[in-house]
């Protein structure tokens, strides 16, 4: 085998989460009352646009969650005994599918900082000019050419501008057919279901009359392609977002950070849900001493500053890792375990809010008559909690999970910046921002690391928030979806008068 699959802890949990989501989707599709609110979400243009953006991030994150160790090229066989099977040796570093896809930009390190799309380094260096006829060359202080960025240009001063523009336009031109292809696939997928001719369907899409807001989805997709394709083409010859201190491509770092953010945002909720759902419903339904105990527990936990707990947890783990090097054969596994640990600690410190909400809701539900009817049938308490209370608080759980996601992504960045977040060797938005602390203090200022982290996080969190808003509107019974405006009105009134 040319590679050895490696399943990290977080990978396994992500696969588990995918399976859970798949089961959930299958379950929702079979139940009309569960399908209805999701159908309302699907009809919200902002939510669907946000979903397109989120989907891109999720694909990046999933690609980055397929890990393996590549086989090393066979060493020249010195032995003569050919029959013996040769042991394959695997590289020490763990790579992901995303690494392989991005290998062209990942494996082009410069010496140090370079600005976005630059052809020359960002700082002057002492360059040795080749001397004539074997004489020793002169030394000058100048901006040296980059090893890879714009290396194909003969005269950067003259060719740089036209080349960048041409590539960008080529990318934009290429985006159009790609977009049309996506639109055609959409039509092919939807026409038979809607029993319309494709012409009618296009017409409806164009005027925004379809139930699922295809127009908004297609526009978002088009804009995304317009950004992504030119960047892809440019990245073949340039560092589109510049390079960092050790010369790594910032675009690559930003893309790698996406997985960290997603893992923190999703796995943390996976850790916290059992606590908050079980304890919250138990406290609200069972009341009495159980309620008192759970309440005192989470009030106490809530009174300990969260950052302190997290710092303590992470430092303890660090010591453990250092004293048990044999448990983690590769640095990736080490970093990954620390990430998982961070998710667990974040989950343990952040379940109290949801727990309190669920307790209140369960207190209300337990007085409802269908619960009393079940009690009159002698149904056991656990069964009542599972069959009557839990399904009726699921909307709160869902809303809070979606709303918490963006908060957790931001929390990771802050914690890593403080130094108690992910492993320093793990690429994340937090470590990028932490590095930018020194870069921003330089003269001239290095701004692109921070700017990239900022833009990527903004896109991710904004999309998550927009989607969460739509989910809340659809599921929260107190927020009624604003009724469509009346289509008649003054005109009808005048007509009838």
């Amino acid at each position, binding site marked *: 085998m040319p590679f050895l699959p490696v399943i990290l802890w977080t990978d396994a949990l992500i696969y588990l989460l995918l399976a859970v989501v798949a089961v959930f989707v299958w379950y929702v599709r079979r139940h009309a009352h569960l399908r209805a609110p999701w159908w309302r979400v699907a009809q919200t243009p902002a939510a669907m646009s946000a979903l397109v953006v989120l989907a891109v991030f999720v694909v990046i994150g999933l690609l980055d969650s397929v890990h393996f160790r590549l086989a090393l090229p066979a060493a020249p066989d010195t032995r003569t005994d050919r029959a013996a099977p040769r042991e394959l040796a695997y590289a020490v570093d763990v790579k992901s599918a995303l690494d392989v896809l991005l290998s062209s930009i990942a494996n082009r390190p410069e010496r140090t900082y370079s600005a976005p799309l630059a052809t020359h380094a960002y700082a002057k260096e002492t360059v040795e000019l080749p001397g004539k006829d074997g004489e020793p060359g002169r030394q000058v202080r100048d901006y040296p050419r980059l090893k890879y960025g714009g290396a194909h240009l003969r005269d950067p001063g003259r060719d740089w501008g036209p080349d960048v523009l041409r590539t960008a336009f080529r990318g934009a031109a290429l985006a159009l057919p790609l977009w049309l292809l996506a639109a055609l696939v959409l039509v092919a997928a939807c026409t038979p279901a809607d029993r319309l001719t494709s012409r009618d369907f296009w017409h409806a899409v164009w005027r925004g009359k379809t139930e699922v807001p295809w127009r908004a989805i297609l526009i978002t997709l088009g804009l995304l392609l317009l950004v992504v394709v030119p960047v892809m083409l440019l990245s073949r010859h340039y560092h589109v977002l510049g390079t960092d201190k050790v010369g790594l491509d910032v675009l690559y770092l930003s893309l790698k950070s996406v997985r960290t953010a997603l893992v923190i945002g999703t796995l943390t909720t996976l850790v916290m849900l059992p606590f908050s759902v079980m304890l919250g419903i138990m406290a609200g339904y069972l009341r009495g001493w159980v309620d008192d105990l759970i309440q005192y527990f989470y009030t106490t936990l809530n009174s300990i500053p969260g950052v302190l707990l997290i710092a303590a947890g992470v430092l303890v783990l660090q010591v453990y890792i250092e004293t048990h090097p044999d448990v983690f054969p590769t640095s990736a596994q080490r970093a990954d375990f620390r990430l998982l640990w961070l998710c667990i600690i974040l989950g343990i410190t952040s379940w109290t809010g949801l727990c309190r909400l669920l307790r209140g809701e369960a207190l209300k539900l337990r007085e409802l008559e269908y619960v009393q009817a079940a009690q009159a049938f002698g149904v056991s308490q656990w069964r009542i909690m599972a069959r009557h209370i839990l399904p009726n608080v699921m909307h709160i759980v869902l809303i809070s999970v979606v709303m918490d996601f963006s908060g957790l992504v931001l929390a990771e960045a802050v914690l890593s910046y403080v130094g108690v977040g992910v492993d320093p060797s793990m690429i994340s938005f937090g470590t990028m921002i932490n590095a930018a602390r020194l870069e921003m203090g330089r003269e001239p200022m290095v701004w692109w690391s921070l700017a990239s982290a900022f833009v990527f996080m903004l896109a991710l969190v904004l999309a998550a928030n927009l989607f969460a808003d739509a989910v809340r509107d659809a599921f929260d019974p107190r927020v009624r979806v604003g009724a469509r405006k009346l289509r*008649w009105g003054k005109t*009808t009134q005048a007509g009838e*008068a």
Partner: protein
Amino acid sequence: MSALLDIKDLKTWLDSSGGTVRAIDGISIEVARGETFAIVGESGCGKSMTALSVLRLLPEAGQIVAGSVLLGGEDLLGLPEAAMRGVRGRRIAMIFQEPATSLNPVLTVGRQIAEVLERHTALRGEAMQKRMLELLVAVGIPDPARRMGEYAFQLSGGMKQRVMIAVALAAEPDLLIADEPTTALDVTIQAQVLDLLSGLQRASGMAILLITHDLGVVAQMAHKVAVMYAGQIIEVASREAFFGAPLHPYSRKLFQALPGSERRGGELAVIRGQVPPLTTEFRGCRFAERCDLAWERCHVEVPGLTACDNGHSVRCHLYDGGKGVDPGERVSAAAPAAPGATDVSEKVQSGPALLSVDGLKVHFPIHKGLFKRTVGQVKAVDGISLDIATARTLALVGESGCGKTTAGKAILQLIRPSAGSVRFDGRELTRLRGRALRERRADFQLIFQDPYASLNPRMRVADILAEGMQALGVADTVAERAARMDRMLAQVGLNAEAKLRYPHEFSGGQRQRIAIARALAVKPKLIVCDEPTSALDVSVQAQILNLLKQLQRDLGLTYLFITHNIAVVEYLAHEVAVMYLGRIVERGTVDAVLRTPRHPYTQALLSAVPALDQAGERKIIRLRGELPSPANPPSGCHFHPRCPQAMAECKREYPQPIRLGENHEVNCVLYRAQTR
């Protein structure tokens, strides 16, 4: 005299996901000064929407699409919003159904009245204070100076409604819109509030637009009556004409559906089917589908409002010359249903008691302080005793807060009693624990008041019905259970295909049938019915009462019927127990207690029930004050602070039960002399 409020051909449409709802589809009414105009109809007929249209306070999705609303000759629909604000509160005021939510909890009572005065009058400072006091005195609030500084939570329900009326009257409006003003109140409080409203009307000469579903309230209050059905007014008449001889088949059916003692023997009239959805385009009469007298014309031609004699008009083809009015059909609507159909169970002698409750007490401790010390007891149920024989119905009657629901739950062991015994079929229930109790649960079941809260919205009907059977092991195999489900659904008059649907797809009456089927599925002997019809419309209530009665005949069920509705008691029950503040004050057969009430409280309660026939001017016994708190009940007889006939002795100790005849018992010292 020109009308104060003149609504002409008003149409209000709502936009909903299911299409356009024609909530009001062309109604025209005139309300004169000093007159009470009642709009009566079942839920969803558009009566509240009419009030909101007049005030232009429609929900976001609603819009008035045609018509005019003239107030003293001025078209309200043409006014700009700023001018409309001057009309609201100043010329038209409104009081709402739920007094608990119509007052702002963080403002004092005085502040909320002052708000109206500041907006609509020139009164300020001293003068305003004086006016506020006057208003509170006018609505009969004792100690008004102190109450002005209090908050809503310090007031009782009746008191809140009085404050709401004071707020509404602050700017001396020409028209008061009262949207179900007494629906959330008890009968004795309702009588007080209705009295207050008619007194204020006499004093100020304002017009009242009364919106209600209760024909009794209409009979007591209204000068003119309009009946609404599916967004249209189908009958308008003076009170005398309407209650003398309602013309529209729907109105007549409504009267026949009312339960009461005169219908004890037979079935109540029901209106088949349901109100058509208002999203449909009507081609004929809206009521045709449900009308017994409908013929072809009713389905193809929309009837107009036809004027009959003495200002009585009706929207029905029976009266517009298409088919001559058959005098035989104009029989009084109140005529008793088929005579001769006597109740079989009536004659059954009461056998040995199936359920016998003795000295049942439920006390809830009041905890205070850091360590939850018990500082007192709420005596919700304070020693009640009753017996019910097999296949009989005992009605437990009382006002809200008297502990009747708690008593029902304590009997079912859903709340553990603090003292006393509950013997069911000869076996003591209060000492049963855990498994032993669970096994007995199949024998006694419960039907709730609110059919919307009693079915889990996330479960299909089949799962709802199966739950009890599974828990109690009634039918062991899946096939057996399914067969039993079908049988139960058929018994309560639903299709077997209902099994696969969710509760929200059913109407209120159908949901109540499902709840009944759920209880029946485990083969109970006793069913505690906790106000099973009070959330339902009259015509649906009739269906459910008929069903309960029929089930009792067929299956020999025993009912403990908890209610505040005296008419339902008269129709359904064999025996009555009247509760006041956690104790039974009088009990006996329905005839004995309701015909010759002896306890002063029972007398007051019965006199406060609004009656349809105004012929014999009944004397309403007004009770002072309201129900005291069960945490701190009065000494001696609980009723003595409000009792018109209280004596010094009543304060000292609680009276012992006194037997008056074979089946009548009363706890009152007034009757002690008779028995000695």
